[in-house]
């Protein structure tokens, strides 16, 4: 049996997306060309932009297509460095500095480190044991008048969803711009950029059954902008490079399918997640469910298994045909456990022994039963050989 429970890493193409993309493969015109071939491609891109913009309640000219969620995030961090410079036309009232969180995706953490080396003040918000950011600390740090605050809506490792309304109100009251990495949120929970009052929002296609290599950045009308990739007039001069027509069409189709399937799927997956959680808790002692007990993605279940190392669990599950991921990366040679779990105050042992199960639209009850059975067997086996699990 093959069971794929790594949907937060990436998802298979939705069959409808695949059909749509195969159809579109014949279309090769450069969307910037004035002739018929180009106009056809341009039309497809603009139709796609409309579908995608509507889904998050943005205007069409507020959507910029990019190569990935990481590129979208990098673009925002890069422009913040730029608009803090007095000479740049994208000046943010000469505000400087960024506040972000200690549980962001590595593309945010690394961008922050790079900006810090270039002299920008970066503050990282602490989180509580469930992964929720420290609102008091945010309030305090906002007094330093930063240019930007960046907080992800839903965490990729533990699934915790932040209290966005409270956070965004504080940020705007303090006069800063607000960016969110919504890669794990868009297409899973409702995201409305107008109602939520968001300035920048990054999302990507391949986490929601679309193709890899395409994402989008929402930039609210009127906020300062400076391109990350220069040298072309594409995307209103905001992102140079010939558009990925095929990817964009795939992304729009994926979003269209989300509109149709999201609500039903949420109900189904919430049940399956509860079933998995219950099964593991019943079968195994000394395990810990990570993430917020209520405000958590319905498709993400992060579990720490006391006394065993994550990579060993992952590879035993792999041999049984089950695909999951772990926050413990022994492969890098650094043995650093998940920065997210450490930020929640987990002990190194629990952080090293964590497994993320992320469910998707094809996940079935039969599969979850198989996963519960195999995981139980594997954890018991590993605990028997563990130096630290003595029972």
């Amino acid at each position, binding site marked *: 049996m093959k069971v794929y429970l790594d949907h937060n890493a990436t998802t298979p193409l939705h069959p409808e997306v695949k059909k749509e993309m195969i159809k579109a493969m014949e279309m090769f015109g450069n969307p910037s060309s004035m002739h018929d071939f180009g106009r056809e491609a341009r039309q497809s891109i603009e139709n796609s932009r409309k579908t995608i913009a509507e889904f998050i309640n943005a205007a069409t000219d507020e959507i910029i297509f990019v190569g990935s969620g990481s590129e979208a995030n990098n673009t925002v961090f890069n422009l913040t460095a730029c608009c803090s410079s007095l000479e740049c036309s994208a000046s943010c009232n000469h505000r400087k500095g960024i506040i972000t969180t200690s549980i962001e995706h590595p593309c945010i953490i690394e961008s922050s480190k790079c900006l810090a080396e270039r002299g920008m003040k970066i503050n990282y918000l602490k989180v509580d044991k469930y992964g929720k950011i420290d609102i008091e600390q945010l309030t305090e740090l906002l007094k330093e008048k930063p240019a930007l605050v960046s907080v992800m809506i839903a965490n990729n490792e533990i699934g915790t969803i932040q209290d966005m309304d409270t956070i965004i109100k504080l940020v705007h009251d303090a006069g800063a711009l607000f960016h969110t990495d919504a890669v794990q949120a868009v297409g899973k929970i409702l995201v409305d950029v107008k109602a939520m009052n968001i300035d920048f929002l990054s999302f990507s296609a391949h986490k929601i059954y679309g193709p890899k290599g395409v994402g989008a950045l929402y930039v609210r009308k009127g906020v300062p902008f400076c391109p990350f990739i220069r040298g072309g007039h594409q995307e209103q001069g905001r992102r140079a490079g010939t558009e990925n027509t095929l990817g964009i069409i795939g992304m729009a189709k994926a979003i269209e399918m989300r509109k149709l399937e999201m609500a039903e799927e949420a109900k189904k997956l919430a049940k399956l997640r509860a079933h998995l959680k219950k099964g593991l808790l019943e079968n195994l002692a000394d395990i810990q469910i990570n993430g917020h007990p209520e405000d958590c993605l319905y498709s993400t279940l992060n579990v720490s298994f006391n006394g065993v190392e994550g990579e060993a669990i992952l*590879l035993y599950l792999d*041999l049984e045909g089950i695909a999951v991921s772990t926050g413990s990366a022994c492969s890098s040679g650094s043995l650093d*456990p998940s920065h997210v779990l450490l930020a929640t105050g987990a002990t190194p042992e629990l952080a090293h022994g964590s497994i993320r199960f992320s469910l998707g639209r094809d996940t079935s009850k039969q599969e979850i039963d198989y996963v519960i059975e195999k995981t139980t067997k594997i954890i018991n086996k590993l605990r*028997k*050989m563990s*130096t*630290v699990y003595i029972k």
Partner: protein
Amino acid sequence: MSDWVYSDIVKKHFMEPQNILDDKEDFQADGKGTVGNVKCGDEMMFAIKVDKEKNILTDCRWKTYGCASAIASTSILSEAVKGMTLDEAFNVSPKDIAQKLGGLPEHKIHCSVLGDKALRAAINDYYTKNNMLSKVKKDKAKIICQCMNVTDHEIEDAVLEGVRSMIELQEHTKLGTVCGQCKEQANELMNTYIKKHFA
């Protein structure tokens, strides 16, 4: 993770690790050693039985909190050392084990060192318990960088963890960052260890 292109032997030992200590069995160890710690992500315990007249390692058991490479390499180590004299067992190198496993990805070598270290600790424990203190092979660490107090062992560990250049070595150990006098010697040592483990 795509490096899980381990040989069939690694897979076999990972699936069915040999000589794991079962808590229910009454394994009377003559020597026991534990190395690593959970904070760093791996820990290993090795226990040995010794034929005291012939100085031969007759049987062994182990346990670990470690990754797939640590499990597979310690399993094969535990098979290999049975019947060896204590001197022979003490001198088994991580390279020998990696070879027996049909090769490990380079960044995984450090995981396979753990079983080896635990075995040496067990042998030293046996010597200590049996009043053979002269046989105890202390890991005589020599300080290379006087300013930052960095030893040759730390340089070797850094190499096993993937360090390949002076810059990386300095980032890793902070050696040579004050007066800088030790840099030449450290560089030589680093190259010796790279040759020893990875040539």
